């Protein structure tokens, strides 16, 4: 496995930055959040905000709205931490999932209102590409994960990567992707399924990295 070449049994790749959250860190944060420890929330905000903003801003292309989504994400997390089993996927992936779903909801609401305008036109060509990779922030917590995922995405065939990008990071449905790429619906489904399947294989090993 490719991931075995990068990730050591100790959980850190050679020469890589610090891990995002250790299992102990996850447990500690969750326990403190359940206990309504505001300091734990502040620490989590500092840790997770760059990744949440990066994801949401890439989807919405609107800094102000992206901040709103991230604030909303932390509010939902703070309210539901006691009732939701966030441990099953990890705390940060849980936050990312919330943020992504909220961003998709907003994107779809925009489309319904027909207010996409130039913003989404501008996104069109960028949507085909791999999410931008910032030169190097190896000291940033989670950078190693970002590099692994980014690498996995760039290794996909371009047509699969475009389908994943449009679906996963822009919240577009099969039909919308088909219309956008001017290809048959079945082809969209196939490309997306293949792309996600490869990513799943590639990224599954990462789940043992932090939990």
């Amino acid at each position, binding site marked *: 496995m490719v991931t075995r070449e990068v990730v050591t049994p100790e959980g850190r790749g050679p020469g890589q930055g610090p891990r995002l959250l250790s299992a102990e860190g996850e447990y500690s944060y969750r326990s403190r959040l359940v206990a309504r420890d505001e300091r734990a929330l502040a620490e989590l905000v500092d840790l997770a*905000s*760059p990744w949440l903003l990066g994801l949401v801003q890439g989807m919405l292309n609107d800094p102000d709205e992206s901040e709103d989504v991230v604030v909303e994400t932390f509010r939902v997390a703070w309210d539901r931490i006691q009732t939701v089993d966030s441990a099953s996927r990890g705390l940060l992936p849980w936050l990312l999932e919330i943020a992504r779903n909220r961003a998709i909801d907003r994107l779809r609401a925009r489309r319904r209102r027909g207010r996409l305008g130039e913003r989404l036109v501008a996104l069109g060509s960028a949507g085909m590409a791999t999410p931008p990779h910032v030169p190097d922030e190896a000291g940033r917590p989670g950078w190693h994960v970002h590099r692994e995922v980014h690498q996995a995405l760039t290794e996909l065939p371009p047509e699969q990567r475009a389908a994943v990008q449009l679906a996963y990071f822009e919240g577009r449905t099969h039909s919308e992707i088909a219309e956008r790429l001017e290809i048959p619906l079945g082809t969209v489904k196939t490309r997306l*399924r293949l792309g996600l399947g490869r990513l799943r294989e590639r990224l599954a090993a990462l789940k043992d990295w932090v939990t």
Partner: protein
Amino acid sequence: MKAHDWFIEHRLDFVARALDPGDEDLFRDHMARCEECAAAVASAATDLRWLPMAAAPVTPRPGFSRRVMDEVVGPRKTVWSRWSWPLAAAAGIAAVLLGGLTFRQATQLAALRAERDSIVSVHRTELAAARDTLSLLQNAERVLTASIDMDGRRGGMLIFADETTHRWKVVVHGIPRAKDGMRYTFWFITGDGMVRGAVVECDETRPGVVMLDMPPGATLIRGGALTEEPMDGDPQVPRGKELAHLEL
């Protein structure tokens, strides 16, 4: 193709949220009933859970963390703001109490000042009277005295006559309080008869002292007398019992 195959085929699409809204709702409803699909979707979501990390991080704008904390858990209260209301309330209460206390003290102070002024006024009057008496006693050219026997007690009447100022100081002492309905009255004995001087109030322990100017229009003052007169009416001539009689 069975209906369930459609759900199996679209599990990853559901995770990616690529299903059209109607299909997404359909899939969600199905998952609520199908443990197999629910578990498969959960597994796929777990495997892909780090996929959002493909996006490059964005450094939050200054103040963003504070905004999150403020909007999620409410504005953090500083030590001052946390205690500002209790302190303000305490200060308000203290101010009211202090104001009340000050007002009360001011009221008491005003009352005390009034009382002091009254006492000072009385004492000044008494002092002036004492000085006047002393002056009269010092300057009296004549001192007349007469004994009064009443109810087995012996008192008396003294007249200090100041010929310079033409004033008399009359002291009645050692006699009981006048009977009910009666009062002691001092009379000048003049060439034209008895002229009323003043009512004298006294008892065994407290002498009666009056300072008298000469009666206006009197041509010749020959002496004084003390009588016990009924309180009703305002007699111009003595009608009661004479207790003392002094001639110059």
